[in-house]
């Protein structure tokens, strides 16, 4: 199984404060990993640093994506190479139509893969078919990005974009936050439909609920910037029983 993402000794600071303190993680193609942990453990930092967001200082370590040094690439280049971040809080961009935005994103990806870019007509046909699958409302394309969307709609839109862009490394930052049962089910179906042997996924989450619907291959527990425990899907149940508190105690005594 080829390694999609290899993180070694990653140390990251935010505003001078060290958040990730030497993290190691390896995800193979076709695998779904989950990262869980208490607030402040560095879960979102991890996802954002891999995606290339500003405001994070990498102090040491390496992140390699399909053998390539990911940290050396600009965010848009990482995206074009197949890295996708499902945002915890997707922003609104008033005035920019979703159709224009999506077409630009799809074509950026196609161009990178040496495929022909889609013209407006072909794009519309392709997109409308996919919209039906995820139950996205008809006026979605004419609206400005995320404008006036409920929390659930925004998360569904993130999964929809993921389906369009066909990324190889998927990072979902608390995709389940703010979702009710029905929304969670729809979003999870979308994620499961996108599992593939040449795709790796990293789900960042607080709660086990998501993992009931999207069973992971591995679960890692992050605490104070380090992975303190890794295991199979049953780890979610254990955590729910005992909470994160014992982890800190364990880590402290290690």
């Amino acid at each position: 199984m080829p390694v999609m993402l290899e993180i070694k000794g990653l140390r990251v600071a935010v505003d001078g404060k060290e958040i990730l303190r030497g993290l190691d993680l390896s995800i193979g193609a076709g695998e779904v990993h989950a990262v869980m942990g208490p607030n402040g453990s560095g879960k979102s930092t991890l996802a954002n640093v891999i995606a290339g967001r500003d405001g994070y200082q990498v102090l040491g370590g390496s992140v390699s994506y399909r053998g390539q040094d990911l940290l050396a690439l600009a965010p848009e280049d990482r995206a074009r190479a197949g890295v996708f971040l499902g945002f915890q809080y997707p922003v609104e961009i008033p005035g920019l139509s979703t159709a224009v935005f999506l077409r630009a994103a799809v074509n950026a990806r196609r161009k990178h893969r040496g495929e022909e870019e889609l013209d407006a007509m072909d794009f519309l046909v392709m997109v409308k078919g996919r919209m039906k699958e995820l139950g996205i409302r008809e006026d979605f394309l004419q609206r400005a990005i995320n404008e006036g969307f409920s929390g659930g709609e925004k998360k569904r839109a993130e999964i929809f974009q993921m389906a369009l862009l066909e990324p190889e490394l998927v990072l979902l930052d608390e995709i389940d936050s703010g979702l009710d049962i029905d929304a969670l089910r729809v979003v999870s179906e979308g994620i499961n439909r996108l599992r593939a042997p040449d795709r790796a996924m990293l789900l960042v989450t607080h709660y086990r609920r998501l993992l009931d619907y999207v069973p992971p291959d591995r679960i890692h527990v992050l605490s104070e910037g380090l992975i303190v425990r890794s295991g199979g899907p049953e780890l979610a149940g254990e955590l729910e029983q005992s909470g994160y508190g014992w982890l800190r105690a364990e880590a402290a005594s290690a």
Partner: protein
Amino acid sequence: MNTTTDIGHFLERDYSAGFVSNIDADTLPPGLNEDVIRLISAKKGEPEFMLAWRLEAYRHWLKMTPPEWAHVHYPAVDFQDIVYYSAPKSQSDGPKSLDEVDPELLATFEKLGIPLHERAALAGVAAEAGPGVAVDAVFDSVSVGTTFKKKLAEHGVIFCSFSEAVQDHPELVKKYLGSVVPSADNFYAALNAAVFTDGSFVYIPPGVRCPMELSTYFRINAAKTGQFERTLIVADVGSHVSYLEGCTAPMRDENQLHAAVVELVALDDAQIKYSTVQNWYPGDAQGRGGIYNFVTKRGDCRGRNAKISWTQVETGSAITWKYPSCVLTGDGSVGEFYSVALTNNYQQADTGTKMIHIGKNTRSTIISKGISAGRGSNAYRGLVKVLRGAHGARNYTQCDSLLIGSRCGAHTFPYIEVQEPTATVEHEATTSRIGEDQLFYCRQRGIGEEDAVSMIVNGFCKEVFKELPMEFAVEVQRLLGVSLEGSVG
């Protein structure tokens, strides 16, 4: 769309229009007094009435003080330290055929992409695509040439430099000059009336749809000069015309003053569409230099069902201060104002419009888009005035501000004065921001930062862009993209 147009070349930033041309010029020393005015009038060979008009305006001006109420800050202008006349020596004997024009002048306009030689269409656009665009090219204080005059004359359309109009059509000039912007209207209008040098004159006879777009291109070259142009467009009963003006100036450390006056008159059932793409040198990234653009533009919908539309894209100038306005005198007349004003680095803008409803069943539409970036400061100032008796007047105003980054400013000063109970006035305003979050979202989807800003800004401005003549809509999008380089962070 990948057609390139001539105007496209001059719109390129990096301020590629910042060069200075080495032209032998006839330049007056700086300073303003009655002798300077007499000299200007003499150089233009003006009839007596014109000189009298100028002098009266000058005497008014002497009694006025510069206005200070706008939301802009600049060191006081020394009016005695400005050169009021500078013209290429080769033009001193008046208008001539293009073969006689100083080759250096021709090269300048060539470099700027302005077609002085008549071509069936703008370069880069297929010949079948349209009838072409007539151009009047103005260099410092004189018009260098006007294309397609003969063809237009066949339709009875007069399109020539203002200087020529004063000589060849004095009755028309006398009839309409100052009827929309009287000399005493404001400080800069008075100054302009005294010292204006050139601009364009357009007259469309009754029932004629002008067969091509008309445009004037203004180029400032000489140092320390002010540019005071005067444009007068008269659309007679039932006529239509679409007019475009463009402009650039060299990069200099000192500010230069541009105080123009534009008067539009539309008679019964006539329509004037006036579009401006303003790209005066905006000053450098530290705010040094740049043009002061203090302009009075006003249209009088004098006849019934007359219509005047102003469309402006203002990206240049250190300071922009202008309110293209419509006086809706005729019953059923319509006034429109579509504007995109951009301020980046240290640019300042205080711009907007005045819609004065006088006749019955008049209608006005105002769509203003302000984009502030860098440390730019952008103010919208608009007046909607409905006089008593303007029965059934309707206005719709939409005023949107977009802030890019966190060090710029946007302000709105709407004035609404309604004295007529049957009037309907609507005003909507929004403010939004492009911040790091929005940009990162785009980048994470594979869209580069510059493309992202460009897409967002174009989406923001599209209601205004769709009012521009087709040839310029594409180039304006490019101009905005370039003007916004380095605007985030």
